[in-house]
C-alpha cells in the first residue's frame, strides 16, 4: 500500500471552507458571488471582492461521485446533446434535478446562486453556452473573454486584445459588486495567484524524481486549491505544506507506486469516475503516471502584479489548450525531458474535443520523435457511457506488456 499524503487533510479543509463560505454568502447576499470558468479571470474577480465559484469543479465532482450518470440524461432531455461537454450536461442536469454532490459532502443544499457569470472561452465554446443557461435561469449578467485558439507564435495583437477584454469586464463587475475597482487589491490577487502557481509547478515537478513521490491521480485531487483558491493566501500556504511533504518523500524514497518499473504521461482529461480503479490498475502494474497536461494547466507563471492585465492575458493565452499542434508536441517533448516517462496515454474524451489531442495524428508523431510508444484510451471525463472499463484495462495491460518486452 502506498503511503498516504498527509497534506490531504488540509486540502479537504480548504475545499470544505471554500464551499461553506460560498454557501454563507449565497444566503446572506454578501459578498457577491461570481461564477468563473476554471481558467477564467479569477484574479480580477477576487481583486474586486467577489467570492468565486467554479462550475467546472462541480462538474468534476459530479463525475467523481458518478452522479453524472443520472444527471446527464436530464440535460439531454431538455435539448443539450450527449455529444457536448459532459461537465455542462451533468451540471445543468443536476441543477434541474435539484441535486449536487455538495449535499452529501458538506450538507450544502444547493450550489451558490451567482450574481454574475464570467467565462473565458480558452477552454472551449461550451463554457459560454453552459453559463448562458444559468444567465437565463438566474437573470444575471453573463460576461467574458473570447480567446484565440490554435495559436502558434503569440502576437502582441492577441495579448493586447485579451488584456483589453479583461479590463472591459470591470464596469459590469463594479455594477454588480457595488464597489469601485481597486488596482492594488487586484495586484495582490495576481501576486497570490502567481505564488500559488509557482508552488503548484514545484509540486508537479517533484514527480520528476525516480521513484515518483506522487502520481497524476494524486495530483488531480490536490489540484483543488490551485483551481478554486488561487489568488488567496490559503492556497499559497497549502502548496508550501504539500511541497515540503513531497520533498520529504523524495528524500525518504517514498514512492507513489511501490516498486515503480514504468513511468507514463497522461494526455487529456481525467476519467473522474474511474480515478481510483485506474490508479489501482497502474499500481498493480508497477506503473506510475508521473505527469499530465491536465494538471499542468493550472500553472500560470506569467502572472505579474506589476502588469496585472497584460500578464493575465499572457498567462491565459500561453496555455496549452489554445495552442497549435506544433507547440503542443514541443510541450510534451519538454515534459519528456523532465519526467523521463516510457510511454504516453492519450485519453480521447468523447465529449471534450478541445482537451483531446489524439485526433490529428499526434500520438504517432510523438511516438516517433520520442522513441516511446503511445496508446489512445476511449472514454470521457464524466460520461461513463462512453467508457469501456474492460477494453481500457486490456489496452493498458497490453501497453505495459509491450513496455516489458522492450
Amino acid at each position, binding site marked *: 500500500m502506498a503511503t498516504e499524503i498527509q497534506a490531504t487533510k488540509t486540502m479537504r479543509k480548504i475545499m470544505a471552507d471554500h464551499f461553506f463560505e460560498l454557501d454563507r454568502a449565497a444566503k446572506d447576499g454578501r459578498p457577491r458571488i461570481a461564477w468563473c470558468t476554471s481558467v477564467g479571470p479569477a484574479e480580477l474577480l477576487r481583486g474586486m471582492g467577489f467570492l468565486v465559484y467554479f462550475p467546472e469543479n462541480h462538474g468534476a465532482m459530479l463525475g467523481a461521485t458518478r452522479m453524472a450518470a443520472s444527471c446527464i440524461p436530464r440535460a439531454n432531455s431538455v435539448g443539450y446533446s450527449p455529444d457536448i461537454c459532459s461537465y455542462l450536461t451533468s451540471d445543468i442536469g443536476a441543477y434541474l434535478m435539484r441535486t449536487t454532490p455538495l449535499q452529501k459532502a458538506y450538507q450544502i443544499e444547493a450550489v451558490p446562486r451567482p450574481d454574475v457569470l464570467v467565462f473565458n472561452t480558452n477552454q472551449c465554446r461550451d463554457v459560454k453556452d453552459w453559463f448562458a443557461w444559468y444567465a437565463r435561469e438566474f437573470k444575471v449578467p453573463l460576461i467574458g473573454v473570447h480567446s484565440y485558439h490554435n495559436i502558434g507564435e503569440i502576437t502582441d495583437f492577441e495579448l493586447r486584445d485579451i488584456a483589453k477584454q479583461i479590463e472591459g469586464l470591470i464596469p459590469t463587475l463594479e455594477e454588480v459588486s457595488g464597489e469601485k475597482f481597486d488596482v492594488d487589491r487586484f495586484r495582490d490577487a495576481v501576486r497570490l495567484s502567481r505564488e500559488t502557481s509557482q508552488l503548484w509547478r514545484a509540486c508537479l515537478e517533484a514527480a520528476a524524481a525516480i521513484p515518483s513521490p506522487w502520481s497524476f491521480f494524486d495530483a488531480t485531487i490536490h489540484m483543488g486549491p490551485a483551481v478554486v483558491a488561487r489568488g488567496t493566501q490559503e492556497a499559497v500556504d497549502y502548496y508550501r505544506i504539500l511541497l515540503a511533504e513531497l520533498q520529504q518523500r523524495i528524500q525518504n524514497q517514498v514512492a507513489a507506486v511501490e516498486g515503480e518499473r514504468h513511468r507514463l504521461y497522461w494526455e487529456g482529461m481525467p476519467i473522474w469516475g474511474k480515478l481510483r480503479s485506474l490508479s489501482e490498475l497502474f499500481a498493480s502494474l508497477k506503473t506510475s503516471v508521473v505527469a499530465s497536461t491536465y494538471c499542468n494547466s493550472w500553472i500560470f507563471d506569467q502572472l505579474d502584479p506589476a502588469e496585472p492585465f497584460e500578464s493575465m492575458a499572457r498567462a491565459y493565452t500561453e496555455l496549452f489548450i489554445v495552442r497549435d499542434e506544433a507547440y503542443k508536441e514541443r510541450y510534451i517533448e519538454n515534459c519528456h525531458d523532465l519526467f523521463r516517462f516510457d510511454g504516453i496515454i492519450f485519453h480521447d474524451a468523447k465529449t471534450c474535443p478541445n482537451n483531446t489531442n489524439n485526433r490529428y495524428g499526434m500520438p504517432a508523431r510523438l511516438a516517433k520523435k520520442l522513441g516511446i*510508444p503511445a496508446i489512445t484510451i476511449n472514454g470521457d471525463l464524466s460520461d461513463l457511457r462512453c467508457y469501456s472499463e474492460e477494453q481500457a484495462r*486490456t489496452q493498458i495491460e*497490453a501497453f505495459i506488456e509491450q513496455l516489458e518486452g522492450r
Partner: protein
Amino acid sequence: MIYVGVDVGSSNTKVVLLEEDGKLLGSAIRRSGTDFSAAAELCLGDALRAACLERESCEMRTVSTGYGRRNVAFSDGDRTEISCHARGCFHFFPQAATIIDIGGQDNKVIQLDYAGRRTGFKMNRKCAAGTGAFLEEMALRLDIPLGELNGLAQQSTEVVELGSYCTVFTATEVLEKIRQGRKVPDIVKGLFLSVVKRVLEMDSMGERVVITGGVIAFNPYLATMLEEIIERPVLVPPYPQLTGAWGAALLASEL
C-alpha cells in the same frame, strides 16, 4: 509438462494443449456463455479428452488470455490477448508483420518487428462495427445462418457498398437494399467489405499481413477480399481461431 493456453473470448473459449517440443496435443472450442470460469474448465476437459489425456495424470502449466482471462481458476498467469495473438502469429510466421485479429467483440491490429517484439497496437474504439458481433447481428437481420455467410459472399457478382459506420445504421441500410431488390450474396459481400474497411481504418498495414481470429476461421473469404484491396498476400495461420490460445500456451512454456 503440458503447456496450456486458454483464451476466454467474448464469444468462445478456446484451449490449446502443447507438448514440451511445441507439438499440438489437443484443442477445444466452446461458447463462453455467462460463466467464464465454467467455460474454461469444461473446455479444458474437452481438449484433454481430444488428446486422450487424464487431467489427474498431467502436469500442466497454464496461461490464460481473453476477456475472461482472470476467471480461469487453474491459470498460472494471464496475458492480454494482444500479447498472445502476437506470440501465436510469430510462432507460425517468424517475421516482422502486421497482425489483424478479428474477434467476436473487438478487433486488434498489432505491429511486430523482425524479432517478434510488439512495436504498437490498436484496438477498435468502443464500437462493434467490423467485428464478429457485427456479422452476427447482420446474419440475424437477414435470417441467414452465420455459417452460410462466407459461401454467399463468394457467390456475389456485384458488391453492394454500405456507407454507414454504425451496426444499427448498417442494418437499416441493408433493409433498404433488400427493398431495392439487391441480391443477398451482393449484400453479404458488402457486409464483408464493411468489415475489411473498418480494419483498414485502424492502422497502417506493413509489408506482411497476418490475419487471425474466429471470424476469419469461418469466413476465409474476408482474407481474399483483404488481399485484393491491399494488393499483397495475407497470411492465415493454420488454426486462426486458436492463435490466441496457442500463443498463451507458448507463453506458458516460457513462464
